């Protein structure tokens, strides 16, 4: 293995200035650092769990050599994960001399703020959207704002403002657009290929130089906390004050951020975020598009990874059930050794996965359904968007020429201690004609597959009933029943 240089500081750009930090706690958050160390108090803390968006900032990073700015939650973004990035806070927004930025002026003129506390976060989310999409649709604005809560306005005024931004200025003339080349060059200059190690003993953080280096680090530190998007680990710190040292930040390892298709199988690196995966997956497996639109808010999708969603083993992670139904396989790596297993077998029990000390999830391989193979995934939540799953069902079906069920895989989240197949239901379907009678008979089998729990998201009774009804929905959708099959947000957008 090539020798890796070690650097004992992180370096990034904050607004216009270079920042070099040699003393950084592994659990230090960007938000606290901005507010307490830098007295940049435009960025607010609303919830410290990545759900309200009051702390939204933009982080610019080089993704395949291209500078992209993404909205993120500063409250759960670890400072150590910012090496080589450009952090942009509300204080950095500028318009023409003496004027507000177009996003800000639109918000003022359209009465987009009342108490104003959530406003900097909305401004940053809208700014991120506007840079990418100067004339966004309603649906695009709503999606960009899924991670921003406002309790005063009812959002209508903010939507009006969002539509008007481009009438106040051109995105192409925005300072971040104009300075793109210069910032790219500065970020390139920060990429020295070194591993970052800061701190010692009980407060250590490591940013590996590359994937091989990550494997080496993890081999040496099998008890380390692997942090990719931090959308879960962030809460271990802010809510539970758990010790995560030594923390290994892998969010920016190019080698884990690839997504490629080969022979009908899409391989997704463990560091690929929901946002990065969206275009490929929603194109190749269309049913995943609407699901991904309902995972977290935009900030969480910009940070969170599919690999992390799998690796943390949560029974309510949104990606494992559909990936299991699709027949995905998982590659794990320890040092130089790799093994690839069916994703389904990775989940052993609640909080227990088939991952050895020092081993990490490297990639997940997802077969694209062939023509004629039917696939759907349905997520049920209390609130439609940015809510954690109460129950989620994924269905994969192949019919034989005679209309009987040739192959079926049904997997659920929120119904058991792990993401789980509905084996009895599948058995009741297999080989039978794909008719409503067959489906009804299969629906009676759910009680054998699942004994869901009651919690704050849903009662056991509701989970059982709604989960069962999803099979009927899937049947309706695949059998020529007259639409609509579900309520939908976007038709008016």
């Amino acid at each position, binding site marked *: 293995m090539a020798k890796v240089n070690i650097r004992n500081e992180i370096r990034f750009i904050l607004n216009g200035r270079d920042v070099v930090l040699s003393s950084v706690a592994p659990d230090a958050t960007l938000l606290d650092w901005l507010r307490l160390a830098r007295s940049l108090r435009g960025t607010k803390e609303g919830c410290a769990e990545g759900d309200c968006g009051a702390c939204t900032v933009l982080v610019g990073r080089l993704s395949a050599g291209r500078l992209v700015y993404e909205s993120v939650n500063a409250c759960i973004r670890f400072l150590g994960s910012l090496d080589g990035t450009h952090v942009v806070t509300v204080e950095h927004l500028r318009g023409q001399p003496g004027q507000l930025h177009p996003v800000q002026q639109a918000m003022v003129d359209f009465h987009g703020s*009342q*108490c104003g506390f959530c406003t900097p976060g909305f401004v940053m989310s809208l700014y991120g959207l506007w840079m990418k999409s100067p004339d966004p649709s309603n649906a695009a604005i709503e999606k960009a704002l*899924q991670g921003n809560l406002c*309790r*005063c306005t009812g959002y209508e*005024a903010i939507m009006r403002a969002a539509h008007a931004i481009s009438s106040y200025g051109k995105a192409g003339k925005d300072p971040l657009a104009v300075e793109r080349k210069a910032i790219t060059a500065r970020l390139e200059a920060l990429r020295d290929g070194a591993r970052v190690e800061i701190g010692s003993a009980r407060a250590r953080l490591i940013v590996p130089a590359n994937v091989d280096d990550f494997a080496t680090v993890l081999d040496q530190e099998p008890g380390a906390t692997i942090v990719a998007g931090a959308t879960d680990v962030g809460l271990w710190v802010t809510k539970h004050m758990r010790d995560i040292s030594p923390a290994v930040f892998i969010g920016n390892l190019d080698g884990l951020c690839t997504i490629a298709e080969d022979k009908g199988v899409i391989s997704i690196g463990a560091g690929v975020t929901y946002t990065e995966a969206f275009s490929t997956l929603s194109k190749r497996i269309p049913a995943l598009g609407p699901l991904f639109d309902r995972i977290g808010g935009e900030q969480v999708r910009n940070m969170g990874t599919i690999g992390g969603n799998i690796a943390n083993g949560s029974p309510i992670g949104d990606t494992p059930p559909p990936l299991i139904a699709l027949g995905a396989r998982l590659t794990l790596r320890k040092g130089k050794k790799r093994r690839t297993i069916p994703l389904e077998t990775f989940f052993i029990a609640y909080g227990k996965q088939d991952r050895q000390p020092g081993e990490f999830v490297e990639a997940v391989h997802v077969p694209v359904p062939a023509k004629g193979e039917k696939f759907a995934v349905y997520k049920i939540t209390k609130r439609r968007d940015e809510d954690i799953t109460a129950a989620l069902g994924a269905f994969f079906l192949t019919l034989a020429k005679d209309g009987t069920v040739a192959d079926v895989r049904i997997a659920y989240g929120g119904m058991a201690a792990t993401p789980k197949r509905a084996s009895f239901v599948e058995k009741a379907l297999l080989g039978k004609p794909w008719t409503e009678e067959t489906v009804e008979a299969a629906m009676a089998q759910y009680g054998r597959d699942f004994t869901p729990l009651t919690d704050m*998201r849903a009662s056991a009774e509701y989970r059982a*009933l709604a989960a069962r009804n999803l099979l009927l929905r899937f049947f309706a959708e695949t059998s020529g029943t007259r639409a609509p099959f*579900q309520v939908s947000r976007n038709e008016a957008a």
Partner: protein
Amino acid sequence: MNKHATSNLKAEKIVGGVATDQRHDSAHKHVSGTAVYIDDMPEPSGTLHGCLGLSAAAHATITRMDLSAVRAASGVVDVLTAKDVPGENDISPTGRHDEPVLADGKVEFFGQPIFCVIAETREQARRATRLAKVEYKELPFVTDIGELDPKKDKLVTPPLTLKRGDAAAAIKAAPRRLKGKMRVGGQEHFYLEGHIAMAVPGEDQDVTIYSSTQHPSEVQHMVSHALGVPSNAITVEIRRMGGGFGGKETQGNQFAALAAIAAKKHHRAVKIRPDRDDDMIATGKRHDFLVDYEVGFDDEGNILGVDFMFAARCGFSSDLSGPVTDRALFHCDNTYFWPTVHAQSAPLYTNTVSNTAFRGFGGPQGMVGAERVIDEVAFAVGKDPLEIRKTNFYGTSDRNITPYHQTVEDNIIQRIVAELEESASYARRRREISAFNANSRFIKRGLALTPVKFGISFTATHYNQAGALVHVYTDGSVHLNHGGTEMGQGLYLKVAQVVAEEFQIDLDQVKITATTTGKVPNTSATAASSGSDLNGMAAQNGARQIKDRLTDFAAEKYQVPRDQVLFLPNRVRIGNQEIAFADLVKQAYMARIQLSAAGFYKTPKIHWNRDKGEGRPFYYFAYGASCSEVSVDTLTGEYVVERTDILHETGRSLNRAIDLGQIEGGFIQGMGWLTTEELWWDGKGRLRTHAPSTYKIPLASDRPKIFNVTLADWPEAGEPTIHRSKAVGEPPFPLGMSVLHALSDAVASVADHRICPRLDAPATPERVLMTIERLKGEAKD
């Protein structure tokens, strides 16, 4: 911003007077992150930070509290317990002495503060708090009012009965009658800025507290009691809150008191900002209710008599539960005339956090009960609920006496509803929806139009007073202060518009300043939608006093009759000449005219005898209506709001842009309350929905897909309110009821609209689906 050089002395109208659409005075600061909230203020050097230690039992005596590890933790300076409260260990806002600052030996809800760690940093305080070892001897507890008997079980405050006529007899004699029960959930405020207080000690007994509160005077009084010092030692200041909604009417007292105690004890500034979870666990919410109703009616759907029991989950102490449950009864009529009525409240004691004010203050819960009764009658007689609503509306010259014997003198609900019914194409869409439902197996649509009448005034009559302080400086610029607080509702702006209008100077000549008990004393909470009504009048009074003195001065100096002194935009006409307002002010100063005034206002006409249940508690009523259409998935209970139309009135609006924001925001908040916002306690009495990850307020994508909001341009207040405007804070909140009823309508379609769905709130997808299942079952029977 005082740019007096730019004052236009020839203008026909001032910039920013009343009845003009002005942007929020802080909007440019909001969007740039420069609006200062308390946590954004630079801390005095050496500032300490507090964190509350919360009880881990719902009802228990504390048998042992070992705080040694807490005290020994890194950065910890002190740990306060009940015995560290130098004055009275009580912050009960109504003087019932039932709410300790820190629990003393006994805890009455899971999450009750029992100690407070004071440390060098907030992080250290949070970490240390977790090291406490507290042992409890558990006592029986109850969290759900469904397990209680409203007539027998413990109440936190005396109940109220309203009655007019003999409801029991009327119901008994009615051709038809029915009974039912409804559950209406509570609601977390979810102000984006959580509670916070920073206390800065002064000399002698003095302490200044920056508190995120809607009620600085109460914080002042509570802190003075807790410290055992006179009120004059305490100054409370608040420039702006990041949202309040009632959640900061009384609930900030605890944080302010603890910060002040620690600040005085350690002679250092102390800041307490609970994290979101602690804030949601340890501070009160909207009351949830169980409403028992019985109604007598005829075959046409004319309601003849109604009997209500409103049982409320109040939590472990009274807080504001008395007036909240009173207001529920005051709104159990909504827009309907009950020929006979009997309504009782039961403010029940539970082992939960003490519930408190929340926009509407019990009123919406009362109205939801009234609307359920309407629905029941509509289903019973087989008519569209809208018809039954209209049949039972208050009249204008008769059928206009409320259950509390106040005459409704300003009723405009018929016109509001007629206009909305027309603009929303209610009848056509009713037909279209029937056709759609007949052809759609799984997705069903529903439609409903619900009215709102909301009573304006504090029902505690003495609260209906306000003060303001107006200074005119020698350059003609104005410094304005009043007792109202700014929480985003645009109060400061509206009052500044009133003052600008009074002096006829541009709005930018009026400097809006932070609310402080040192400038305007003995103020009421900014609550009950009263902010502009009360403080606008007080500020107008202050400005008028100065204007009168200026007029007297000008008349004498220029030897013209008083009526020849006219205040024109940015100038004053005195006889045949005009001089700049600033010049007149300067001349007046040189002539030793007092240019400062304390304004005052008290609402006329109102009175209330609670023992008799009679009076005129409300100065006037505000009206509105909304019409919503939803789609419901009958397989999962999921839904979307397809369209909402609103027609609401605010009299002759002071600022339509601000009022529109209040209406849109109020509706969405009301919709959230009745749909996705669910508070959930587990078997140990723990609130498990204590963060936005588990407690779901509406998002931008929960807005109605089509959302038409209109401010009626024809009404004006019947009473001489401030420029004939009407209050707008709370009245739009219950407009959200149309979504609940539209959901109910869609649910009813699964049983061919023959069975009243009795859909309870919040109508989460789960509750919708379970109601659908129940209806399908009942339809089969």
